[in-house]
């Protein structure tokens, strides 16, 4: 079942992330693909995540497809101009890749090639419009294509951005530009997320709530301090502390599973997006704990 079919069928969808490695040794990544296929509905293949140069997303998407895992092509506007982006979209399409997540992309200053020229010729909202045009058989200039694409395009949103209003205005622009589904930045406060969903439910879109597993109280504090749009409530930090160093990861997995269960049982959103960041092998554990396997 494709991601679109799963969402259309009203399935509570689970997506996760595969981060291509830096270098040609893909043994571990293949292991993760094998581990996740048949369990999750689709996997985001990241695009030079955090502006660190790695294998490109498109090649790994194709590999995942061959392995039987539905890929979501993450596409940022950091490294390619409008010609490169459209050309890659056409390329992805003929390789059978039909899910695309349109993002602006972390600035090069975050990565390992800080002296690179950041491109941002266009940005996430424009990229969504471009995908819509390609789906209608035209490039962004209106030139006719010999064969249209059939992308299922999505975007990202940060429900806990501060201030949130300009972020919500951009969220609406993304919807108007053709985004069908959204994956959110990591959320830890279900009540706050419900408020966001009350707003998001006004629109004909699917929302997958983002999760980053907390490995320790220290990690929670780090996220609060350094990662934009993430707020881990003190109650959860206390819960991790109380579990002790040995059991902090288990506590973190339990918190994630508990939250996912709450969202699913309360029919709050349409699915979840688990960003394991190096702990891909724990995704099935979380799904089991959440009653999704």
């Amino acid at each position, binding site marked *: 079942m494709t991601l679109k079919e799963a969402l259309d069928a009203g399935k509570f969808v689970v997506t996760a992330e595969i981060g291509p490695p830096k270098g040609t040794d893909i043994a571990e990544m293949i292991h993760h693909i094998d581990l996740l296929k048949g369990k999750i509905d689709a996997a985001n293949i990241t695009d030079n995540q955090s502006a660190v140069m790695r294998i490109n997303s498109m090649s790994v998407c194709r590999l995942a497809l061959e392995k039987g895992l539905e890929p979501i092509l993450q596409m940022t506007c950091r490294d390619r101009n409008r010609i490169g982006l459209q050309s890659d979209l056409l390329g992805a399409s003929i390789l059978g890749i039909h899910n695309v997540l349109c993002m602006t992309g972390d600035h090069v200053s975050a990565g390992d090639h800080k002296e690179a020229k950041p491109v941002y010729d266009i940005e996430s909202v424009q990229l969504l419009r471009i995908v819509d045009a390609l789906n209608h058989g035209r490039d962004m200039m209106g030139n006719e294509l010999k064969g249209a694409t059939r992308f299922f395009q999505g975007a990202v949103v940060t429900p806990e951005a501060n201030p949130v209003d300009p972020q919500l205005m951009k969220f609406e622009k993304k919807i108007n530009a053709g985004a069908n589904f959204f994956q959110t930045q990591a959320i830890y406060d279900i009540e706050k997320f419900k408020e966001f969903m009350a707003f998001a439910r006004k629109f004909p879109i699917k929302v997958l709530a983002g999760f980053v597993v907390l490995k320790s109280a220290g990690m929670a504090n780090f996220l609060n301090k350094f990662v*934009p749009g993430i707020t881990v409530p003190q109650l959860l930090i206390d819960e991790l502390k109380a579990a002790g160093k040995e059991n902090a990861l288990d506590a973190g997995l339990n918190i994630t599973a508990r939250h996912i269960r709450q969202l699913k049982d309360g029919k709050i959103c349409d699915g979840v997006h688990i960003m394991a960041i190096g702990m891909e092998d724990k995704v099935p554990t979380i799904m089991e704990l959440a009653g999704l396997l």
Partner: protein
Amino acid sequence: MIITRKKDRNNILETVKKYDSFFLIGCSECASLCGTGNEEALDEMAEFLRSNGKKVTGTLIPKTGCQTLGTKIELKKDKDACEAADAIIVMSCGAGTQSAVEIFKDKPVYPSNDSLFLGNMTRFQMFDERCSLCGECIIGKTAGICPVTNCPKGLLVGPCGGMSDGKCEVSPDIPCAWVRIYERQKALNNLDEMKEVIGPKNWSAGQKPGNLSAKKDADKKEKKD
């Protein structure tokens, strides 16, 4: 104005090592306000060159270094000093330096400054960049704040996910341009203007090298009207 910063003096010395004598040209406009091409800066450079065994045949601070014709006329009185120099060091911006390149057909010309940006002076010798000279101004749609310049990604449609407490992901010292635009639009009761999707930007409007004949441009417009 054009904001400039002095290059490392020892690097300049290394670049010009094969020459013995120099004529120095500053600028009374931007480079003077930046302290990179005023009398004090020229004196300092002359002193530095002399202390390293070089000769300074003369100095000039033209009124506007990037005004090529005017600078050429001003330099006439220094004809002998210029001729006596092996090379010219220009202590203004890249534009001023290239005026000298045009004027001195048979003499090497070297810059002593790095040209950084078109900037506003906020306090004495404190500058920040507000305009990127992109060729197609959009600040009429963004509450007068330029996102092409003030956002490190030059985003035209709103803040990215990297914004945190109104600050930029690139540095907490940079206020998010789109939060600033949002706040100003809100204060002006113009938030509906933020709903417009600007772009994709026409980057060809700022194609390099720029070239404009204001008179021809005006004549053309007149004809059109």
